[in-house]
């Protein structure tokens, strides 16, 4: 297992390194000079040169790359001129907001997919419902869904808050520990804030979850169907184990394996934030920030964001690979075990 894990970690590091190189090159190949944006169109050549020197842009490309990487590792992620704030503090508030929403959406998508996939095995009626619901999910534009949900649950039924970000205006954010309002308010015992944060999470998370849910439930359902045809399921039933227990004990874990990779991709995608959902719900996440900095050629924000996303993506995949090994002995024990 240790050998399996170190191998996976090493290959993850290589992937992140590759992403950093791409992020670095792309931001320099894009047309338009960030320096001109900072100093303005009327600034003198000397001013331009000074700023260029200050940003280290007069150095050779390898040196610039080294600066970028070493600064990133040290935690010095540069200063965003378009926002007027250090990138690190900018992302420190924005990233957790997107992460919290993404995690919540993933829980909805994944949990919902598991429950409905199992239920769809029980009756043809549920199966038909799940199938059409999933089709709907694959074809519904997320911003439209967001508006519908807002009209129904917020405006008409007054069950959930409207598009006002992570908390109601009169609620103070909890002291920052993880940046997740739910966890922070729970840890500090502010249950009123916790409930408020949860209320604000539900609609955007549902919106974000719908498409990935549809994808996962179809995948899981078909995998589960395949597994129920496996002889070992009949064997387990011939031992006197009830049908539902056989599905939980043997069906789900085996159906889960091929779904795991897809789930990881879905999860990583959700974590990177969604421009549309964040815009509709006024969610202060990275999605909006990225669009804004791209428009402003704020390459410092962009290259940090790309690298961070790569790290999140790779970490999630790494966890999945390790989970795979933990669940499936054939992978874990692929080498070095006597027959």
């Amino acid at each position: 297992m240790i050998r399996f894990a170190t191998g996976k970690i090493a290959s993850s590091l290589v992937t992140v390194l590759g992403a950093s190189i791409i992020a670095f090159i792309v931001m320099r190949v894009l047309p338009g000079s960030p320096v001109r944006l900072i100093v303005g169109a009327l600034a003198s050549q000397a001013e331009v040169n000074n700023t260029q020197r200050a940003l280290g842009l007069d150095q050779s490309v390898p040196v610039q790359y080294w600066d970028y990487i070493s600064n990133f590792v040290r935690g010095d992620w540069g200063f965003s001129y378009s926002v007027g704030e250090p990138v690190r503090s900018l992302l420190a508030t924005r990233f957790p907001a997107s992460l919290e929403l993404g995690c919540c959406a993933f829980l909805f998508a994944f949990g919902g997919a598991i429950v409905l996939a199992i239920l769809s095995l029980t009756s043809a009626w549920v199966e038909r419902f799940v199938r059409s619901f999933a089709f709907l999910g694959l074809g519904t534009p997320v911003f439209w869904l967001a508006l519908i949900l807002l009209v129904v649950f917020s405006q008409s039924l007054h069950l959930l808050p409207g598009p006002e970000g992570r908390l109601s205006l009169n609620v103070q954010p909890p002291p920052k520990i993880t940046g997740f309002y739910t966890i922070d308010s729970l840890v500090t015992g502010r249950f009123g804030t916790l409930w408020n944060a949860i209320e604000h999470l539900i609609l955007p998370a549902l919106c974000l979850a719908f498409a990935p849910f549809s994808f996962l439930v179809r995948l899981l359902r078909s995998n589960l169907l395949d597994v129920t045809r496996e002889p070992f399921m009949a064997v387990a039933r011939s031992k006197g184990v009830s049908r539902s227990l056989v599905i939980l004990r043997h069906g789900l874990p085996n159906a889960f394996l091929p779904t795991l990779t897809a789930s990881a991709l879905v999860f990583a995608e959700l974590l990177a934030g969604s421009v549309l959902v964040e815009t509709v719900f006024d969610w202060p996440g990275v999605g909006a920030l990225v669009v804004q900095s791209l428009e402003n050629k704020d390459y410092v924000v962009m290259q940090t964001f790309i690298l961070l996303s790569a790290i999140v993506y790779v970490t999630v995949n790494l966890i999945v690979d390790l989970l795979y090994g933990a669940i499936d002995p054939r992978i874990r024990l692929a080498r070095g075990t006597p027959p």
Partner: protein
Amino acid sequence: MSHLVSNSESPLLQVRSLKTEFSTPSGTVHAVRGVDLDVRGGERVGIVGESGSGKTALALSILGLIDPPGRVVSGSICLKGRELWPFDERRLNEVRGKEIALVFQDPMTALDPIQTIGRQIGEALRSHSSMSRRKARQSAIGLMQEVGISSAARRVDNYPHQYSGGMRQRVMIAVALANQPDLIIADEPTTALDVTSQAQILDLLTQICRDRGTAIVLITHNLGIVAGFCDYVFVMYAGRIVEHSPVRELFAHPVHPYTEALLRSVPRSVAEGESLYSIPGSPPDLARLGRGCPFAPRCDRGRNEPRCANEDPATFEAMSTYGPVMAECNFAEERFALVAQQGPGHPS
């Protein structure tokens, strides 16, 4: 009606007129078409037939393991005097593994690939008693030793992919033995194995039957295995039992032309240039069976007989030297009489 009529002992398992159907897009497949089957305690019974004759469907039907689109339509399944059909899942879960255990055909796919061997044997134990996981693991080791898995204490925590086919089938037998059932139904337990493993598994089953008094129903298409293993044989064709008789009688004097043809098609040494016998034609489509004997189109005797083609064959019952015989064939009486003239033990 059964070979038990003459025997006062009531059978362990008594199946009557069992019918199992599968609804498919191309029509209803009548996989089991009114089967009678008797198994006494400690008896070794063989069910022989070609692929697709309904042997596996019969085995699964007895345990209520036929899943939709298939279902047991009618009949009676009586286990130790208690009726199982119409099925009650709760009652079936008590029977499965505890009173009747199944050994499946392909040991490569019969084990959950992501659970240890010990847990899967333990599962059989734990589903019929409130045994702790630890205790179940210990019992699993004992069972593994009993079925001849060496260094069981070490191998109990292995996964199926670390076992060979023969070893996996031993595991399956350990699973079947876990709750000391009265009956083990082994569905082609050796088909997926090499010849050496086949012999070992059959020896193991023989030993279990002898030492524990467990009745065994061996489903196979291999007549060699039947000859060496069974006391009594049921021959299945197109979803029906077409002949049943004691094993020695069956091999010496097959009454049904299908049984005779099966025996003739067992490969044996032939002279150079002589070809091996095979039954002409192929088994009927179980979705489009009409009236008449299903074997008639392939039968040397009945091919041109109008009554074979148009009427259900007559049931013939008689007492032979070794025990009662039944055959569903219009010529059975005539053929049996011929045999009686030749005297016992004379090959037909």
